[in-house]
């Protein structure tokens, strides 16, 4: 394999992020990219370890709807979904509707590495977590005042929100999934996605994030993708797998991401965002919502943004 520059790309969710959350969102993805890159850049750093570390950073950041800061379901509980996948052997692990776990992406990795399965859900997933010695944390550790506020508003205006789900602006609901894709020196790709889902979702609702090909997919022969946005729309078009299929037909990573989102909008009326990387390390990122915080690092250069036209660049200082 030729010289691949280790590269990581992060997103913090595609939705109409309110002004007061912009700074925290941008800071959060920059930190996550830095954390992930420091793992990637080590001599034997792997893409898989890098995406896991980056997602943990986002899960522990209350600004994002994943882990701490996750939104609440219809019962007022936190129910978490996550997926992690590596592109060499297509090994993958995911969990859905798991409760009171600080780092769902770590549990997803345990599913991948310690079971013969690819996905565990609900109570079964929590039992597995206990068997693996993953500590259960009090719900209050994960719930933020912001999440409670959204839930109270939702409960009050339930009918109106129901209409919002079914109208054409499917991206209007908060979509704060977090995701990461990376490629390491060996040319191995990996992806990971984590979320608390949408405010007021039915108990047991599984969105796109933990479903293979929807919330994320990767394959060393093509690249890696992680998605965010209106989950039900993403699932209908298998957005992550579609991005890679577009790469397979010869499109650049950027065009592959744009075309996939255009298709989702046309076919099922859904809005969202995509981050992707091909097997040469070329990145693509696109979103059809108002904002999506993203950050990427490669060759000691950090690039990031949140508005559609943003493209900030900083050289990383060696500490």
């Amino acid at each position, binding site marked *: 394999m030729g010289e691949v520059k280790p590269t990581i790309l992060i997103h913090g969710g595609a939705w109409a992020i309110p002004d007061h959350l912009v700074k925290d969102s941008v800071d959060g993805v920059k930190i996550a990219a830095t954390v992930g890159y420091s793992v990637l850049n080590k001599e034997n750093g792997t893409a898989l370890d890098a995406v896991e570390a980056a997602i943990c950073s986002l899960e522990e950041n209350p600004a994002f709807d994943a882990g701490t800061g996750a939104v609440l379901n219809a019962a007022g509980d936190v129910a978490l979904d996550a997926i992690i996948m590596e592109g060499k052997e297509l090994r993958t692990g995911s969990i859905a509707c798991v409760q009171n776990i600080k780092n769902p992406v770590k549990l997803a990795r345990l599913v991948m590495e310690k079971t013969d399965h*690819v996905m565990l859900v609900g109570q079964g997933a929590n039992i597995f977590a206990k068997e693996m010695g993953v500590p259960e944390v009090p719900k209050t550790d994960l719930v933020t005042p912001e999440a409670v506020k959204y839930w109270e508003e939702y409960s009050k205006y339930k009918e109106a929100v129901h209409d919002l789900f079914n109208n054409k602006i499917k991206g209007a609901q908060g979509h704060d999934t977090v995701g990461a894709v990376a490629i390491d020196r060996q040319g191995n790709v990996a992806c990971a996605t984590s979320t608390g889902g949408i405010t007021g979702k039915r108990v*047991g609702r599984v969105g796109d994030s933990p479903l293979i090909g929807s919330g994320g997919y990767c394959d060393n022969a093509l690249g890696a993708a992680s998605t965010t946005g209106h989950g039900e729309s993403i699932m209908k078009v298998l957005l992550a797998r579609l991005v890679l299929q577009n790469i397979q037909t010869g499109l650049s990573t950027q065009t592959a991401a744009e075309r996939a989102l255009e298709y989702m909008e046309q076919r099922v009326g859904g809005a969202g965002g995509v981050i992707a990387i091909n097997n040469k390390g070329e990145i693509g990122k696109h979103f059809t919502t108002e904002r999506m915080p993203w950050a990427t690092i490669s060759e000691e250069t950090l690039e990031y943004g949140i508005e559609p036209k943003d493209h900030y660049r900083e050289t990383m200082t060696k500490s």
Partner: protein
Amino acid sequence: MDPAIIVHGGCGYITPDDEKLLKEECLKASVIAGLKLMEEGGSSLDAVEVAVTVLEDSPLFNAGVGSALRSDCSVEMDALIMHGKDLKVGSVAAVKGVKNPVKLARLVMEKSEHVQLCGVGASNFSQKMGLEKVSDEVFKTPKQIRSLEKCLAIKSKQGGCDTVGAVAIDTNGCIACGTSTGGIIGALPGRVGDVPQIGSGGYADNSIGGVSTTGSGEDIARVVLARLILFHMEQGHTIQKSLEKSLHYMKEKTGTIIGGAIVIDKNGEIGMDFISPEMSWASLRAKIHWGMLATAKWRIRFLKGALKFGESRRQVEH
């Protein structure tokens, strides 16, 4: 468009002689029920729902009654249903106590804002929708109890991949697919395989075709098999070539030889293929065909009309 339907009763399990005829009869009943509905004006969605329900109600298949048991001896089921017009889809994962998971999947699609419900949430929703709650005992068969005991005793890798599925196309050219399973023998509670993963257990898109898959669930999911088959068809390959390429790819990447799929394309052409020693299936459009056992040969028998017998699985004549 002449309505058409194809169903499968799973692969990865060698049917004992005393079950073969029973399975054949059940598969035939399944396609007849589905086609009849479409001939009476029903949609392909109605057809796949009823066809899969017939198979779920039979103890012979690993779906609904007859589901494989989890490692703790409980029953948890997965199902998917999808309509190719607007890509509407509904699925349930690790649901307990629902006699026909495919019916519940359809209710998720039509009566909720979501695409997938799992576990307790799925069961609660089913009761809200007025579906009867049934105990695990309804689903357990002596065969599956024995299989679990064997699996636990020898601590073997779980096996038995007898998912059921259906794909149909109606007079309007609308395509639907449905897949249902009890999972693999001795799976962890909460384990979800390929079936409810959209694009893996099945996929339907009127502009390409519909697919339902069966086999080693984890391996099917890793290659997103149903969608992969349709990607090849989008590139212009025939159904048969698309099936071969996809199943071969899955075998290469994951090492499994347990896999199969049924397909109907947007023109109403039917196809199937499998890399396991056996996959039971039946298809119907004016004439009924059924097949099982493809090591060296398979049988095609026609209910009415024509008349060709084939030795190769490619000779599917309608």
